[in-house]
């Protein structure tokens, strides 16, 4: 069984982004970039499936600028077997990415696609569900447990109010939540080995996909700042403030 895992290059989760003064976006020049944390969980899960003898090959895919190669190398250092870069300088929105992934799924015929549930830059939480729709495959989003057996996947999902378990027929799309696994640190030998793994590059046009954005960003602003309030000395003062100043209890 082949598993395909899309990985996105995003601003590192530790970086506090700044909105550009001209309001056109956030400043990502000279900022540390990393693999989207949810995608790292997705790669880890796919590699574990391979180590368990369930998956035979793990293919990492990234869509975006040439530097996404680094993200693919990081995925291969965790254990992906090869990488595919869909290279473009166009700003890619979730629907466009889902279409690119569909084109690759048609070609690669994976039985399972594991996506991160959302990217921590645009916070869209769409691509996996959109890919499942375009492929006409079932989906199991926000997974905290994944068991693959007999042409089906049993997926425990984190939902509002608790957990639910779905049984879905393969091929399917699964999106990862935080508790699915804890990704390993890539070891130096594996980082070296990853450099020699195959990495193919294709262009959206070669896949026959129109990636033109559907949403125009008119402006990006900083949210209203919340200012720090006061320090209270003790519990009595806190209760007094809550009762008589804030009037919330």
């Amino acid at each position, binding site marked *: 069984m082949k598993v395909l895992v899309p990985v996105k290059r995003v601003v590192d989760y530790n970086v*506090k982004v700044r*909105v550009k003064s001209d309001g056109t976006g956030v400043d990502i020049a000279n900022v540390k970039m990393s693999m989207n944390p949810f995608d790292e969980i997705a790669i880890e899960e796919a590699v574990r499936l391979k180590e368990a003898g369930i998956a035979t090959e793990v293919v990492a895919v990234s869509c975006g600028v040439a530097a996404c190669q680094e993200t693919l190398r990081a995925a291969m250092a965790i254990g992906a077997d090869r990488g595919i870069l869909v290279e473009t300088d166009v700003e890619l929105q979730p629907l466009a990415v889902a279409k690119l992934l569909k084109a690759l799924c048609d070609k690669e015929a994976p039985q399972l696609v594991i996506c991160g549930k959302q990217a921590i830059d645009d916070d869209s939480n769409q691509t996996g*569900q*959109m890919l499942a729709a375009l492929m006409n495959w079932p989906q199991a989003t926000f997974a905290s447990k994944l068991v693959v057996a007999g042409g089906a996947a049993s997926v425990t999902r984190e939902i509002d109010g608790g*957990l639910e378990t779905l049984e879905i027929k393969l091929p399917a799309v699964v999106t990862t939540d935080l508790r699915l696994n804890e990704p390993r640190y890539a070891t130096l030998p594996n980082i070296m080995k990853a450099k020699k793994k195959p990495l193919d590059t294709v262009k959206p046009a070669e896949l026959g996909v129109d990636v033109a954005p559907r949403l125009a960003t008119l402006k990006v602003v900083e*949210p209203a700042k919340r200012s720090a309030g006061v*320090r209270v000395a003790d519990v009595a003062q806190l209760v007094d403030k*809550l009762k008589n100043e804030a009037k919330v209890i």
Partner: protein
Amino acid sequence: MAILVIAEHDNASLKAATLNAVAAAIELGKAAGGEVHVLVAGTNCAAAAAEAAKLAGVAKVRVADAAHYEAQTAENVAALVVASVADEAGDYSHLVAPGTSYGKNVTPRVAALLDVAQISDVVAIEAADTFQRPIYAGNALATVKSADRVKVLTVRTTAFEAAAVANEGTAAVEALAAGPDLGVAKLVGRELTKSARPELGAAKIIVSGGRGLGSGENYHKLLEPLADKLGAALGASRAAVDAGFAPNDYQVGQTGKIVAPQLYIAVGVSGAIQHLAGMKDSKVIVAINKDPEAPIFQVADYGLVGDLFEVVPELTGELSA
């Protein structure tokens, strides 16, 4: 052209988040023109539909009642929504769903089948085609304009007041032919956290615990009496959930629940930006932490530096007095 709200419900009643989505749709209706319809897909869901029909501003409730909507799987619900957009009673300019785990699961599937973009987590409606939404964990707000024929939105529930029950009259409730049962996903079971406390997303007061509590035992022993005293919901930081102190659905933050209660009490929460993203719109924030440098104090209205193991029981006691 009309606006269709995809209702989240448990067949017996609407989830609170649906009321916020309806309110957003009513606001959209003012900007775009067009009445608000609510789609209820479920099994024996007449009660939920009747509740939707009582909401002020709702013109029509469309109900698809069939056995295969029992689990409300994304595959079956999305197929139904897409069919209803195309049918003659439809002609929808906008689809709106709450930005909950349910809405986030189903709605992108609908958008892709319609070949349109989705606008996630809308916090403000600027025009019929222009919306504001947070990006980068709420550290920036983007205004985006959609050129698609149907605009598909999920809305951040904390950004819109709940729709109210109408003083008189109810909307028409119409049956909608069920779509096919695609049969590709089967619900095996649900383990829902049982609690007599208010729902996290709708609570007026939230008591939230972080890693500083040290253990699940401490989390329950210290926070539950306080929450009970205040009639509050319980929340948690990611660190506390990862460590197993609290169940996953308690998580407040960028990728967990976004909350905006009247009062948010953060106990032993350091205040990572991912956590702040989930609660910084609360009206009043209280932070209790022994580390005076903890980032949570930068957003707290009232900060108390101290040992939570002493402060929290004292606070609970003080409230009983």
